């Protein structure tokens, strides 16, 4: 129960931080914000790596592998495309 409360505490505080930080993003950058935050949600990749690598059963390994593929697309595609867009905003 204690770990749960600690996790919920972190969850709630992180949402507050998120609201504070994101409200300062100007509308001009809303598309890069979405693709960039998308890349961040690919953080699931750490769980995927462990499932694919520890190989408990065939099923968990397959699920882990698929998750690695999906999350890597998210991370690589997300950060790259965000970079591509932001470069366009920077140059003048």
């Amino acid at each position, binding site marked *: 129960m204690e770990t749960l409360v600690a996790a919920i505490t972190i969850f709630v505080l*992180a949402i507050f931080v998120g609201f504070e*930080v*994101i*409200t300062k993003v100007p509308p001009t950058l809303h598309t890069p914000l*979405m693709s960039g935050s998308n890349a961040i949600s690919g953080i699931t990749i750490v769980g995927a790596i462990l499932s694919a690598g520890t190989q408990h059963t065939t099923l968990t390994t397959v699920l882990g592998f698929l998750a*690695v593929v999906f999350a890597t*697309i998210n991370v690589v595609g997300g950060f790259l*495309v965000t970079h591509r867009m932001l470069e366009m905003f920077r140059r*003048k």
Partner: protein
Amino acid sequence: MPAYLVNLAYLLASALFIFGLKGLAHPRTAVRGNLLGATGMLIAIVVTLADRSILSYELIVAGFVVGGFAGAVMAVKVPMTGMPQMVALLNGFGGAASALVAGAALFEAHAAGLELSRQFTVATAASALIGGVTFWGSLVAFAKLQELISGHAVVFRGQHVLNALIAAVCLALGIWLVAEPETDRVYWLLVAASSVLGVLTTIPIGGADMPVVISLLNSYSGLAAAATGFVLSNNMLIIAGSLVGASGLILTQIMCRAMNRSLANVLFGGLGAVAVSKAEEDKVYAGKVKAASPEEIAMMLETARRVIIVPGYGMAVSQAQHAVQALAKLLESRGTEVLYAIHPVAGRMPGHMNVLLAEADVPYEALKDMDEVNPLFPETDVAIVIGANDVVNPLARTDPKSPIAGMPILDVDKARTVVVIKRSLSPGFAGIPNPLFAADNTLMYFSDGKKAVNDLIHALKEAA
């Protein structure tokens, strides 16, 4: 690596994510912000790879190669007009990855014969539910945006009842999973039911409501990651997931406010499914619409001191952004001030127009948001509307019965002259006629967007 070091590295990664998002507060710092976020991700991945419980790296590397290649190709190839589709797909993949990781964790626990905590089971159910909805909802959004299926709202009798039923089934399966976590079958049933829910709740949402849906799915993909964080008791996942969840929620809220509609109305309203009647159109347009040639418009632009360009989704469709920028440059070289008025829901995702114009080298200082630009219209000589319709429809201000009543609009009708570049008088997404097209100070310029702007440039150069 000892656990405390791993967790410290995860804390560093989380901090970098926050700094990264903070960098997006300004175009100048945004590139660095994105790099900080990517660095955080790299740290998190490297530290995880050093985990002692990993027996084999082959599949992990294979996954990196396949996913990395696919992701890089998508990111490099996607045209700026296709960005909404790309983000929709990424949302879906994020949701799917989270649900898969939660499932893998559940089956690992089964194989090891572990006693499962309530936190673990509830979070697994949440992750499977949100992940399934996100993946399939995003695929439908992608198919609509890519025009693989009709972009119109798909509505049928009993739709809400059916959706409510399936939502109830999902909830029941979730509770079952929590009550009997040792049954593998329940997880799969929950994934299947949430997939159906994802498809059915996205099909009734039409093209112009896509900005809301994509924002919402963006939020879901974050929440799915956070739920998986609860499954794995991993604080970094919880932090990163809730940052993304908050971001998507804020964007959803901004989009809804920009249409003066509640989220429930967007999700369940099925707006755009009804077509406008001919009689209604005639009442507004008959005998009042004035068409103009490029030469006439060029003459007005020659003497204009301030011109405001109002782009909409139509500009993206006809790929007119480069032509628009060339026109703006030409006007500026003659001393005319040129600004761009961007409505929050113009295009198919938040900030879509801004990205298109940035690609065409329009400086971001010239892109004005609604609150900034509306007071300028009364002192504007020419407003050029290209490919926008509902966001400049004055009915939003005057007709309380209109489906767009109360929606904040760009006040282009207050400019001295309004030029509307449009192929025909066909209605916008809301399916209603636009009295702006028949206003005394409006000139219709019937043509494809890109061709129209190029002809204007030509006429301007001829006149000089």
